[in-house]
């Protein structure tokens, strides 16, 4: 292990290099740009033996997922409008079972234009059939890239690794890299069941009738649900291999029998943890829950760790338009409906467009939610 002090985008690029991609396509967009620049640099120096394609748009970036059909380990990175511009092909990649890994450095979407973090870009891709991780630290960014490849390639389902623009992408924080031989042991070369190549033959992505189409898409939906136990198992293997503890699907901090649980994802998990501790000092027993996997949503894990009769507050860095709150609030309500645990769920959209989220602001929101509940 080597300890490094650098940006989140560097943590991402170093992990991608260690993962040994065969093919990278990229198009610059703030705040992702420095990932593509670093990868171009590694490729130019021969530190990455794969090919780097500097395409002319994000739509073409994702069209380049065709590389994955040949069996290539494929990477790209984007943010915000770039992710939205790819949307059509995100569906295609998942339907095509092309296990691309993509870093999405979360950023608000236009209009109006805003360069700072929220998770609107990622939650807008909820139903594309991609797995989605959210990272809360530089270390998690680095580690999650390997997890993402491992799970994506085992299930043949593409995967997004999300992390917050600027707060993580551009800030300098310490993280540990892992020796290449350990990475190679954890993440062996991709073994595709089929390749777009004359030796394998076949027409890929053909027109299908309703029955074949439905069977195919239902299989994708079912396979995505199998990702949760697989991710948990791979997290354990990675932790054992590196000797470093790893957060699970949902990381809880605070008392297990707390009165109030506060759910969030991304870098605001750190402030949420402090806010929960402060709330406990104020006499309201509270714990913070950090969501590491947004798709599939770990509904059973959430229902299991919450004690009966507690309150759950979902703090969303996104807006679920037409609904009161954000995406996590909807997920949490759905997860707990019928759990029989009598858990009251409420929530608020906070930190939109990168609005600062100091502990004091979170506490104000939390107190407001608890007040309404009374």
């Amino acid at each position, binding site marked *: 292990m080597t300890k490094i002090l650098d940006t989140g985008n560097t943590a991402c690029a170093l992990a991608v290099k260690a993962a040994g991609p*065969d*093919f990278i*396509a990229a198009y610059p967009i703030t705040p992702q740009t420095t990932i593509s620049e670093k990868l171009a640099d590694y490729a130019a120096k021969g530190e990455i*033996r*794969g*090919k780097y*394609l*500097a*395409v*002319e*748009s994000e*739509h*073409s*970036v994702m*069209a*380049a*997922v*065709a*590389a*994955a*059909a*040949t*069996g*290539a380990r*494929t990477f790209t990175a984007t943010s915000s409008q770039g992710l939205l511009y790819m949307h*059509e*092909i995100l569906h*295609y990649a998942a339907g095509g079972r092309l296990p691309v890994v993509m870093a999405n450095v979360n950023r608000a979407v236009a209009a109006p234009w805003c360069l700072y973090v929220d998770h609107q870009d990622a939650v807008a891709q909820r139903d594309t059939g991609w797995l989605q991780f959210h990272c809360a630290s530089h270390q998690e960014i680095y580690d999650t890239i390997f997890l993402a490849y491992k799970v994506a390639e085992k299930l043949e389902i593409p995967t997004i690794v999300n992390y917050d623009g600027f707060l993580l992408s551009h800030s300098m924080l310490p993280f540990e890299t892992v020796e290449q031989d350990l990475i190679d042991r954890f993440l062996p*070369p991709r073994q595709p069941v089929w*390749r*777009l*190549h*004359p*030796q*394998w*033959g*076949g*027409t*890929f*992505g*053909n*027109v*299908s*009738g309703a029955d*074949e189409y439905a069977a195919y898409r239902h299989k994708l939906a079912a396979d995505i649900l199998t990702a949760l136990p697989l991710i948990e198992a791979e997290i354990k293997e990675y932790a054992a291999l590196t000797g470093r503890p790893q957060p699970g699907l949902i990381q809880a901090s605070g008392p297990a029998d707390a009165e109030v649980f506060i759910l969030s994802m991304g870098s605001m998990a750190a402030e949420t943890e402090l806010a929960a501790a402060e709330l406990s000092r104020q006499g309201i027993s509270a714990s913070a829950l950090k969501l590491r996997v947004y798709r599939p949503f770990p509904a059973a894990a959430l229902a299991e760790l919450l004690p009966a009769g507690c309150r759950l507050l979902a703090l969303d860095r996104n807006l679920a338009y037409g609904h009161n709150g954000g995406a996590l609030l909807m997920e949490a309500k759905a997860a707990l409906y019928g759990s029989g645990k009598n858990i009251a769920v409420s929530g608020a959209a906070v930190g939109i467009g990168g609005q600062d989220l100091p502990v004091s602001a979170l506490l104000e929101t939390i107190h407001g939610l608890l007040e309404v509940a009374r």
Partner: protein
Amino acid sequence: MSNPISTRLADWPDYELIKPGTGACAGCSSPMGLRVVGKALGPNAIMVMTPSCAVACSGILPRACYDVSVLNVCFASAGPSAAAVSLALDAQIEKGILPGPKPTVFNWAGDGGTYDIGFQGISAAAERNDDFIHFCYNNEAYSNTGMQRSGATPRYAATTTTPAGKPENKKNLPLLMLAHRPAYVAAASIAYPQDFYRKIARAKDIKGFRYIELHAPCGPGWRFPAHETAAMGRLAVKTGAWALWEAEYGRLTINSPTLQLAEGKRQPDPLETYLQAQGRFAGLLRQPDKAAAIAELEADIRRELAGLLARGKEQ
């Protein structure tokens, strides 16, 4: 040409890219053209397709009529998808993951996927000199969705979105591609399969971005009988409405019989013979001032041919 390529049909390989059972309309240019592509490129090839008639007629999953590796991608994606497949093969052959020799990667896209929705990505691939062949089979409209106008639809042609005839001229995409100065550009016709075969075989031996456009008359769309596809293509070339030429690294050569028309050694056939043979120009031909309109189109053709000739002499 340093590498003489036989254009005798008897010398062409037996390999058939299309298996019996294509769902194409009778007389469709796409399978006719793909058959020649298969013979010229051989089976060590990967075909990338964007939505077009050629995909719609390929058969319903799990059946498919193409005896080659095929990837059907999204509409605007021909350029980056083929580029990515080609580079991913390079990477994996270099690493020893995949065996060589590298398959020829080619796109088979319509004029919709080339002139219009896919142009940005194809232009970018040409600029990067990505290593694949882009074939555009140009049937001058969105035939797959039932004959709507495209950037390749000629002036006065009726389509379902230009019912009174298209008021605008078409783009000249082969010349636009030539302006990218890629390794190879050619304009071919379904009516001249030997010329098409020679151009593909030539392109196969060149590394980098190669563009071959095939003029591909569409019976149901243009409204002519199914057995007249080749005749329609020949009329287009003989009237000068479609020009045969090729260019290597920007050096342009006009091919016969377009060359004779351009050099004035032979007069183009009257354009009206071509227009009258199709239903899509019926509106124009009913106009009282049709003679003036046709004279204008013929003047356009003469100017285009003169332009090609001048462009060929520049180098």
